[in-house]
Structures are given as structure tokens and as C-alpha cells.
């Protein structure tokens, strides 16, 4: 599984602010599916601006995961804006994900 989803910015000059994320998963595995569902919900609710999410299956591309310093899946890496941050697990804690994404958290 390797797919990429981009929410395009309305203003091309805003491209520098695009939030880029990479989610390392095992396709079809319970925690990976949950992580993707949780991340999509968090992005829908909290990400106002454009973002790019790449989903990488580590069974197909383990070297990319190792190059990114990934030890376990699911792992979410926020690549930009800097600094690079990482969250591991099924992303069921929105506060932890928002913190890693550098977003103000207001979830219960």
C-alpha cells in the first residue's frame, strides 16, 4: 500500500505552509487501520490549512521506514513544518497527535 492524499491550498503562495505527514502502517492490520481512521478524523477537525499525507506500508517499503528512524508501526511522522516529530501507536489520543503536529489541542 502506498498512497498519497493532498488537500490543495486555495492560495498557491501558501504552499510553504503545507503540513506534510507520513504514516507508516501494515496494510489491513488492526492498529494501522485505527491509526488512519483516527488521523483522518483529527485532520478533518483540526487542520484548517492544506496538508499532504503519505501512507507507506512497511511490508513493501521497510527501507524507507528505517531511513525515517521508524522502529514500530503504526508511526506518524510530521515532516514539515520543522521540527520533525513522531508519534507511535494507533493515534487514539488526539492530544498527543495534536502536540506532535504542532496544533493547539482542545480535545477532551
Amino acid at each position, binding site marked *: 500500500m502506498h498512497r498519497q492524499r493532498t488537500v490543495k491550498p486555495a492560495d498557491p503562495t501558501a504552499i510553504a505552509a503545507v503540513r506534510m505527514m507520513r504514516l507508516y*502502517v*501494515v496494510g*489491513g*492490520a*488492526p*492498529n*494501522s*487501520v*485505527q491509526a488512519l*481512521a*483516527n488521523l483522518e*478524523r483529527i485532520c*478533518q*477537525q483540526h487542520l484548517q490549512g492544506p496538508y499532504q499525507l503519505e501512507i507507506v506500508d*512497511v*511490508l513493501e517499503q*521497510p*527501507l524507507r*521506514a*528505517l531511513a525515517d528512524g*521508524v*522502529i*514500530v*508501526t*503504526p508511526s506518524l511522522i510530521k515532516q514539515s513544518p520543522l521540527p520533525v516529530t513522531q*508519534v*507511535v*501507536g*494507533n493515534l*487514539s489520543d*488526539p492530544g498527543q497527535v495534536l502536540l506532535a503536529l504542532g496544533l493547539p489541542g*482542545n*480535545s*477532551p
Partner: protein
Amino acid sequence: MTPMSPGSPAETDHPETDALFAAFIRRLAQDASTLRAIDLGEVDAILDPVSSRAILLPETREALRQGVVVPTNQMLATLPAEEYQRLLAAGLEPVTLAFGDLLHEPGELIQHLYFPSAGLLVSLLTTLQDHRALEVGLVGCEGMVGLPVAQGIDTSSVRAVVQGPGQALRMESSRFRNALEISPVLQRTFHHYTYALIAQITQTAVCNRFHQVEARLARWLLLASDRLQSNPLRFTHEALADLLGVRRVGITVAASTLQQQKLIQYSRGNIKILDREGLKASTCECYQKIKDIFDHV
């Protein structure tokens, strides 16, 4: 086959080997957050830097082999892994639902609760003695059907009918009540959803009384597409008229207006949202109010 690193046990079904495997995994994952995720059961695989391959955890291998259903329902997906596993063990089971399936009728016992997956849409309708019915709530993968059970009530006050076919996970009411009693996490999740659903129902009541059909149609399409997570939507004018409690011609006029403004495209029951932001601008305040409440619970 890529060799594993020295000392890495083979993947087998033997408990002793699995114990060795668990120890091997803990050697690789040394930071606190990774170990915590493993302890919570939130990890599927671990990357072995020596063999440059991903190694599935025993639980993941078992789940993939058995084809375990993974929730795309947001209430279930946000539960900690052990809470979800507990519900699965208590009798959560997959079910496929068709358009028009009646899940609950007013006054009848609620046999099962339903957690819709992405793609399934359920209308909650309040009925009158003259057989008329009006939609008061809309449930998709963000919520569940059968909320009274979570409040200790075993009968439904509304009709719950499938508007968009799809999959759900369901559970017998008595089993769910038992699971709820022992889980504060589950109780908190359902308290939040109760608040959000009541807010949706009250906002819908105000909207139906004060707002124009065009704004109400836009509100309904936006809410439905949020819950279905799909575009286009499949609904006839007649079905929409029944749900919104207006005459069919009213829906036809409103849909034509939205189509002329290039906000939607309507063809033979297929409604495609062309301009989501424009549709938001054309609806009343009710859509955003409902969305904000669901976003914050």
C-alpha cells in the same frame, strides 16, 4: 526470504517462541513511548534494522490470518486498543445493512446497537399516528444507533432506518450494557456522543421550523457527505422530501437552485457536491453548529 538478525526467533505458533519473539521486540524498541505503545497493544509490526525487514507482532499475524474486523467507526476507533478488544470479545459482530432496513421502531425493544462503518448512513425519524415521519437525526461512522441502551433505557423513541447501505458492527443490548458498566472510558465516550446527538436533534428542530428549504437541503447534504465520507450521494428528490418534511416539488426547486449556482450536480438520484465551500455559504448556521459540536466531543 530475507534473513532475520542474529538472535531473532522464527515466527511460529508456539507460545515459547512467541515469548522469545516478544523479548526480541523489546530489545529493538528501547525508547519509552515505543515500549508504552507495545504494552498498550497499539503496535502492529517492528522494523529490524539488521535484516531490514518488518516483523509482524504475533497478535497482528493472528488478526490478519483471522481477518479481524477493524473499526472505521470513529467512536470505536478512538477507543484504546484494549477497550476495543474487550468489546470484540463481548460480542461485537459485523453486519451488512441494506437501504430501507429498519433497525429500531418507536416503542420496541432495542435488540442491538449499531456502529456504522464509513459509507453507512442511518436516519432517526420521529413518527406520527398518521404515518408521517420526519428526520430528527442523522448517524454515520461518527456515531452509533441505539443510544438509549447506554442510558439504561431498553426501548427506542425513534425509528432508525438505513438510508445509505453499508457495513456496521453491532452488539446485543444486554452484552453492551454489561461492557459499559465496567468501563469508565466507554462511559465517557457515550456521554460525549449523547451530548452531541442531542445538540444535533435540537438544532435540526430549529432549522426545520425557521429556515428555507434550500438552506436545509444544503445542510442535509453536507452532514450526509461528512458521515458517508463519499461524493456523490445517492438520494431521490422523493426520499429527501420525506426526510426534510417538505413537498417533493420543494426539493426539486431547491436542488435546481443549488445546481444553477454550480454548487451541486444532480442526475438520476446521484447528487455530487461540486463546491463544498459554496454549499457551506448557502446553508444556514445549523450545519456549522452541528459540525462544531461533533468536532469537539
